[in-house]
């Protein structure tokens, strides 16, 4: 819904609206600007200046030190995120396909049970999950985290695809069945080629969720298998030695860059995922 006046006059109220919006833009940007400025300062510079003072000397030492510290964990995060995103999206697509086009007795009940998973406080499953991972020999491995993310990402990925597929006319599947196509042929030849937008939404949603996860990372991994979020938290919250805020901020930027990049490149799908997952979830 857009406002009705055809040519909005530059009235006092419109000036006020623009003022509020612009101030809000600045407020939202401040933390990012501060992080960037701080990350390029030297520790002395940080001590003498303030949050928004320009670096007396722009230095990448913070970034270099941060990268040296979190590099391994950064790759861990990729090692966890990429397979987990791909697997959970694939399963979600198949589940959504069944739940929308091949309903059977009980499938709706299953969907209801699964939906609750979108709201599940993970604290209630942490202990049994860690016992299970231990039994499977996957404790403190990135593989174990992949597994966990796949399992607890299923609710959302299935929801995405199911809600997208219910809007596809069932006649399409009927037509394909009369044409002689089977379950997987219909999926591959008819449904999948139509799914690009929702695949994007799902991939991006899962990528941000899993990359940004901290709870599973801190519970199910240790040492070398930790994801970047856990490493960042360890770095920032160690009390030993002098605090190097430039390193902290550079490390935070490193941890935030991949999802930020995805957001800038594919923001449309990101927003759609948020609202789809949220409004319907």
């Amino acid at each position, binding site marked *: 819904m857009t406002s009705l006046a055809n040519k909005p006059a530059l009235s006092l109220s419109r000036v006020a609206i623009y003022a509020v919006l612009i101030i809000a833009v600045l407020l939202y940007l401040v933390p990012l600007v501060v992080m960037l400025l701080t990350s390029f300062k030297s520790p002395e510079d940080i001590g003498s200046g303030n949050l928004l003072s320009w670096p007396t000397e722009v230095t990448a030492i913070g970034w270099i030190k941060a990268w040296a510290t979190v590099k391994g964990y950064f790759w861990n995060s990729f090692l966890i995120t990429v397979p987990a995103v791909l697997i959970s999206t694939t399963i979600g697509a198949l589940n959504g396909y069944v739940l929308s086009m091949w309903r059977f007795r009980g499938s709706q009940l299953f969907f209801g049970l699964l939906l609750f998973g979108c709201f599940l406080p993970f604290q209630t499953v942490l202990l049994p999950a860690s016992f299970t991972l231990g039994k499977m020999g996957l404790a403190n491995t990135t593989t174990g985290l992949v597994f966990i993310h796949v399992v607890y990402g299923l609710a959302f990925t299935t929801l995405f695809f199911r809600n997208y597929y219910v809007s596809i006319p069932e*006649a399409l599947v009927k037509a394909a069945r009369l044409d*002689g196509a089977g379950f997987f042929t219909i999926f591959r030849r008819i449904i999948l*080629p139509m799914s690009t937008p929702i695949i994007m939404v799902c991939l991006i949603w899962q990528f941000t969720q899993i990359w940004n996860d901290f709870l599973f990372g801190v519970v199910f991994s240790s040492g070398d298998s930790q994801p970047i979020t856990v490493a960042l938290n360890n770095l920032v919250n160690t009390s030993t030695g002098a605090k190097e805020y430039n390193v902290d901020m550079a490390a935070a930027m490193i941890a935030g860059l991949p999802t930020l990049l995805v957001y800038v490149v594919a923001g449309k799908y990101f927003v759609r995922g948020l609202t789809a997952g949220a409004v319907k979830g």
Partner: protein
Amino acid sequence: MATLELRNVNKTYGAGLPDTLKNIELSIKEGEFLILVGPSGCGKSTLMNCIAGLENITGGAIMIGDQDVSGMSPKDRDIAMVFQSYALYPTMSVRENIEFGLKIRKMPQADIDAEVARVAKLLQIEHLLNRKPGQLSGGQQQRVAMGRALARRPKIYLFDEPLSNLDAKLRVEMRTEMKLMHQRLKTTTVYVTHDQIEAMTLGDKVAVMKDGIIQQFGTPKQIYNDPANLFVASFIGSPPMNFIPLRLQRKDGRLVALLDSGQARCELPMSMNDAGLEDREVILGLRPEQIVLASGDAAGLLPTIRAEVQVTEPTGPDTLVFVTLNESKVCCRLAPDIAPAVGETLTLQFDPAKVLLFDAKTGERLGVLAPSQSVENMGNVTRLNRN
């Protein structure tokens, strides 16, 4: 091509739920065009899905040719279907849409190409073959959907309200085209619609359905002239048949219906003389075109009544005139050049032989028509559900 026969077909979605289809019994010959017509929720689409094998029946048998296909999967029934939404595969071109079923059936590519060419020519869609469905107009999509069905040369064609997504003008055009196509190809066809005009114009046979039960099965003419019950009578025909509830009386040994326009009265002698009908609540059915202006010569032979015009609706080909008889609004379909003013009094006349009677409670037809018509028609009307 093949015959289609439904033997006592039943369908229910679970114990305790009402039957979706109940004792469906009908058969059509090779090359016939069968219409399933009824209001939404009457089970016509379910019945079509059952014929296609997209849903399973819970009783009875579906015979295509000599083969019982009841347990078969859709792909083995050799059936093609055109859907209301057309269900064209949106990511495939028109050519790929038509080829899809043939490729799955592993037809050699040369044969596929020939078949696509044949169908495209038949439907005049050659210039569209490389487009995607999204780039086509509604009418073009409709043609492609038909093309996809024709390409497989199946035993039976199913059409699920294929014209209802088109605008009014295109719908009439496509209707004629479908009729031409059927006359040319002589394909066995089942066609679902809720549009009674499509039912009347396209069908060799019409099955009128309601609540999962076939109310009447017959030729369009039988359904129109000789409806089995009040529902069929009211569903078929536009403007719809007039219904006047009244009580039959006996006068001078004849059954008569007394009509009262407020200005005048008239006795309509009944052609049937059943004692059981006397003093009984009935509904008298009269099609709008069966009420005519009294003209000089026939005036003496048929009963007439004077009535005041309340509303007129000139439609172009006709003028619909509404009067009140026995407190019911009655529509008369008169010639367009007659333009009576509101409040004017007309003298109307009826042919008592064409009047239909229905039981006021059950809606069933009472008695039979005038002897001349009953001999002609009643003999081969298939009537079901006369419980």
